[in-house]
């Protein structure tokens, strides 16, 4: 849950207008592997060019803009593989882009006797990111292959003992500690000077948090209900 933007996306809207309103949609394009130079194409045009389901694309754009999908819309989706690819790409973004960026900023903070807490922040972030990595690896290696198998993709090797209940349990709230880190830096820890560096660090944490929230929403509100629908069908058929 986050602040709502005002535009509810529809297929005939221009992508560039939507980005103008909410620049964070660039991340969505990146996760869908779509080029940023969208000229004056509409959502429908971009989707057909990139062979992406329009209803899925719109649903995620609207999540970025603060609108949750309805159950009816979710049930009509059949694009689990595309959702998994999107989530996998966002995992890569967290691991290969966000992590080194945030780590780099923290490393540059002054480590000296006046700033003893900086070392603590560094350890906190390292521990936290190890938890994130563990979660991402679990999804990449266990959960997602199982979902792929459910959809009938041939190339998937899977553990038999997987269940969505387990996934839900494993799917712990990794946002809490990120919020803690942000609040420590914004409210409590005194660090001498370094405003530009700290601003970059805090901005970067906000960006990470925003994308993680959407990520969790896609998993909880879209992916899991779809997977459960398939499991129900299989159990009854």
């Amino acid at each position, binding site marked *: 849950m986050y602040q709502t933007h005002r535009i509810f996306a529809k297929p005939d809207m221009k992508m560039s207008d939507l980005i103008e309103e909410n620049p964070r949609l660039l991340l969505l394009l990146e996760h869908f592997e779509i080029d940023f130079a969208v000229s004056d194409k509409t959502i429908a045009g971009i989707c057909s060019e990139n062979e992406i389901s329009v209803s899925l694309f719109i649903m995620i754009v609207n999540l970025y803009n603060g609108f949750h999908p309805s159950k009816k819309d979710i049930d009509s989706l059949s694009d689990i593989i595309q959702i998994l690819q999107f989530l996998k790409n966002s995992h890569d973004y967290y691991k290969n882009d966000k992590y080194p960026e945030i780590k780099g900023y923290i490393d540059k903070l002054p480590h000296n006797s006046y700033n003893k807490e900086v070392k603590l922040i560094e350890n906190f972030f390292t521990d936290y990111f190890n938890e994130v990595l563990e979660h991402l690896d679990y999804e990449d290696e266990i959960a997602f292959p199982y979902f792929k198998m459910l959809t009938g993709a041939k190339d998937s090797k899977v553990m038999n003992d997987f269940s969505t209940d387990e996934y839900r349990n494993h799917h712990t709230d990794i946002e809490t500690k990120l919020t803690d*880190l942000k609040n420590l830096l914004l409210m409590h820890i005194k660090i001498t000077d370094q405003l530009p560096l700290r601003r970059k660090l805090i901005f970067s944490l906000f960006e990470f948090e925003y994308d993680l929230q959407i990520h969790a929403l896609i998993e909880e509100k879209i992916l899991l209900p779809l997977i459960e629908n398939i499991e129900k069908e299989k159990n009854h058929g």
Partner: protein
Amino acid sequence: MEPSDIIYEGLSNFLLRKESHYYIFRVKDLVELNDLIIKEKLEVIILNPSILINRIQEFNKLRKNSPSLIWIGLIYAVFENELLSRFDDLINLTDTSDVISARLNKTLEKCNCRNNEQEELSERETEVLVKLLSGFSNKEIADQLNISIHTVISHRKNIIEKTGIKSLPGLTIYAISQKIIPLD
């Protein structure tokens, strides 16, 4: 909480257009609202009273659990006075934007000063925090300080609310930075 899209969009657009900044969330029922209250620091809840019909018990429970929340009814139909009397304030569909924002600002001002007053941890909360960070359970803390578990939990809730930090490792760094516990 408003079932009509037109009215929800209208009201939220209009709040976002004002000079004050609001975070607006929309929920469809009391269950979702309960989740949101846990996850977010809400100040005001605007809801259509029709949602409460036959759900007064749930509503009372929410009110009891979060006494600082302000509940405003959004009125565009006829409701019984008894139901309306449960709200802190009412907005009518025919109210002008100035009336609505004046009313919201008045209620928000009240909460803001309450939050500011509370920022520092009380002596008791600090004691609970230190024990918490030493690894004691709620029960152990309650026994050591001669208070009920319920009181310990409410101290913990206040600590989280005042510091904005939920995790134990985060609270440790907080406590060190405030010189509540030594660094080592």
